[in-house]
């Protein structure tokens, strides 16, 4: 235990958390491996959904950290560390992507020569959509993210001991560099890993669509963890409902932003009514997918919108916890909806599989493990940050 002048008392998270994380991770991974052995094709697609979810959490959280530095926000400084811990998923992405890289042929139609040869459009796209360049791109982007992650987080942690204000300034510069890089790279990741599942289809707004979901999801994860930790006194007594309110406000903003982007994409395609473009929505409007599509509209927009509209809800920890969990699930459903119906383009028939539930379990376990081990090594509050006091004194 150590205490500082700002009144943060460091407490170790209970060991129980580690056990839970480990159990989830081991069980999920074991079942996942079985899944890969039984049916590698179905398993790779299930794995892809969860992988994209981890990308959302990791890079979305790093974006939140960078945003705080770049715009000079102070209200979120007290829980910036939480986002930093979540962003620690980024280094793991380079390892986690490997199972996918070995199974590209099960995932992407454009890896099959016969499919490419049959379509003028795909032949035209080969300079971009080919396996070597695809792998270089993905690994390259994860590396770039990792580099930014490494420097921002290193400076932030160093500040805990040195209290050097200059480090904040340095991080502002790095963050300002990261944000445009992030904008381009997240678009590339969304295009590569999800849009190219149906390679004839294209939508320039697709990257923004994924971005809106990423940040939404990262915010929900942040809110959930901040409230859970703070309720049990691991953070700081000065973090109160006004901080929660602001988190709720941002989640609300991104709910609307996502709807705006999702609808923009839909409206243009609906208006033009060109077969090349509508096919993507048609795949999501056949059979049971119709229900899922409507469920997305409800879970991703209508419900969170009306729920978060109220001032009182945003002020209450319990209600925010509920919506944070809701949002995490809704984002997962959204990714599922983006990935799965594309299967038919690769010649497979969709059916629900138990594997779809196994990988997220492992992912949650992994996040808990990462979080626990980092919280063991570092403070939960950036105690050396010059903005921290102001952040704690934050009022509406």
């Amino acid at each position, binding site marked *: 235990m150590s205490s500082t002048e700002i009144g943060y008392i460091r407490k170790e998270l209970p060991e129980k958390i580690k056990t839970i994380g480990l159990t989830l991770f081991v069980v999920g991974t074991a079942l996942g491996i079985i899944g890969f052995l039984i049916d590698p094709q179905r398993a790779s697609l299930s794995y892809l959904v969860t992988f994209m979810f981890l990308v959302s959490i990791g890079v979305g959280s790093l974006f939140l950290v960078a945003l705080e530095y770049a715009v000079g926000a102070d209200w979120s400084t007290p829980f910036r560390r939480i986002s930093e811990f979540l962003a620690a998923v980024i280094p793991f992405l380079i390892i986690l992507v490997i199972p996918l890289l070995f199974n590209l042929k099960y995932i992407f139609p454009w890896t099959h020569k016969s499919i490419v040869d049959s379509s003028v459009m795909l032949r035209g796209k080969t300079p971009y959509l080919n396996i070597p360049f695809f792998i270089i791109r993905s690994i390259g982007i994860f590396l770039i993210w990792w580099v930014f992650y490494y420097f921002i987080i290193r400076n932030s942690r160093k500040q805990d001991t040195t209290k050097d204000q200059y480090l904040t300034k340095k991080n502002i510069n790095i963050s300002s560099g990261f944000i445009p890089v992030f904008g381009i790279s997240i678009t590339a990741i969304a295009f590569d890993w999800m849009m190219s599942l149906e390679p004839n289809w294209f939508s320039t707004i697709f990257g923004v669509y994924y971005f809106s979901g990423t940040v939404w999801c990262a915010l929900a994860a942040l809110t959930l963890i901040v409230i859970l930790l703070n309720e049990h006194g691991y953070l700081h007594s000065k973090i109160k409902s006004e901080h929660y309110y602001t988190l709720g406000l941002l989640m609300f903003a991104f709910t609307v932003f996502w709807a705006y982007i999702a609808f923009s994409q*839909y*409206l243009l395609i*609906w*208006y033009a*009514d060109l077969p090349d473009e509508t096919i993507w929505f048609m795949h999501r409007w056949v059979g049971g997918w119709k229900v899922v599509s409507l469920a997305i509209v409800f879970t991703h927009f209508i419900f969170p919108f009306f729920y978060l*509209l109220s*001032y009182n809800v945003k002020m209450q920890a319990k209600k925010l916890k509920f919506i944070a969990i809701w949002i995490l699930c809704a984002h997962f459903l959204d990714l599922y909806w983006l990935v799965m119906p594309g299967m038919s383009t690769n010649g497979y028939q969709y059916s629900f599989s138990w594997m779809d539930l196994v990988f997220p379990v492992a992912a949650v376990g992994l996040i808990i493990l990462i979080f626990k081990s980092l919280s063991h090594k570092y403070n939960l509050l950036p105690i050396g940050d010059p903005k921290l006091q102001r952040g704690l004194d*934050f*009022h*509406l």
Partner: protein
Amino acid sequence: MNENKVLHSVAALFDTPDKIINAARKVKDAGYTMFDVNTSYPVHGMDKAMGLGQSKIGYVTLFFGFAGAVFIFLFMGWSMAINYPYIVGGKPFFPYQAFIPITFEVTVLCGSIATVVGMLAVFFNLPFLSHPIHDSNYIKEVSVDKFGVVIEAEDPLFDKNKVVEFLKNLGAGKIEFIYEPEKQAIKILQPKFIVFLAVVAALTSFSTYFTLNKLMYIVPFNWMDNQKKSNPQSETNFFYDGYAMRTPVEGTVARGFMPYPFHEQALPSEPLANPTLPTKQILKIGQEKFLTFCSPCHGNYAEGVSRLMGQFPPGPTLHSAKIIGYSDGMIYNIITNGQNAMPSYAYQIPREQRWAIIDYIRVLQRAQNPKPSDFQAIKELNKESGKNVVN
């Protein structure tokens, strides 16, 4: 001089945001309820310090935003699907997807305008536009770099000297007395103000129109408007007679169209047979067309007495034995070719409608010379409907 004026409030200036927060808290704790704080920028934590509850303005925004959304959505639906059903871009009559952007905009518009007007109404007590603290030194200072608090005279705890003492103890810099204006005129109803608004409106409209439609006008996508072809009813120098529209070559017959075999023959050798059945629907059309085209000369009941009497060779009665004896085809021939003073209606009345008119004329004729069975039929009908038309 100030003695006969009514005191509105006492105002005090402070130097820093911390001091004003502290002052606001103290004023609230002292039990004052009618007080306000003025700062040149929003100070975080002020609501709490002043003990303000949650603002109600959100409900105004919510209500008007929602009302605007519902209204515009239904309005678009009504105008596009009910009032004037019209297919645009191959979409259904009720293309709700296309309504969403507009619904969204109108929600925002109504919500925000209602919020601003609502705030003005509460703060300034619309239609009044000024508050006693306007035109004071105090407001000038707090608009620049000072922070101020005003305690109103209407507060139940108000006592001029005590309040001044109290504010001084809080560390107030300057203290100012603010008086009610002599007489509050409703400024927004003054002719000067209304004329001002009208001038502003006219100037903005004109300048917008001028800039966008004249000065910076760029023809958008005009390649569909200006094609290399002649439009209907326009001139051209391509043809010798200068008309862009051409008439068909002599003797042209439209596909699927059978020309009338007795064109300009008074007595058809073999009059056509009526292809229609006198159903209710056909008779309705016949009645309408008869009243439009025939009644001016032949009278509303074809009795030969009409409103053009004396201005034109009178159209004879159509109840003569001759006409009753004519076959349908014969009457058709008269309508199509005309007869002496009566012009041809071939170009004005389509074929089926001509036959329908004839059916209707037959009805009028029958009504003049009913058979006993007709009375019987009417009685049956009356019994069914419970009415008594013919006694």
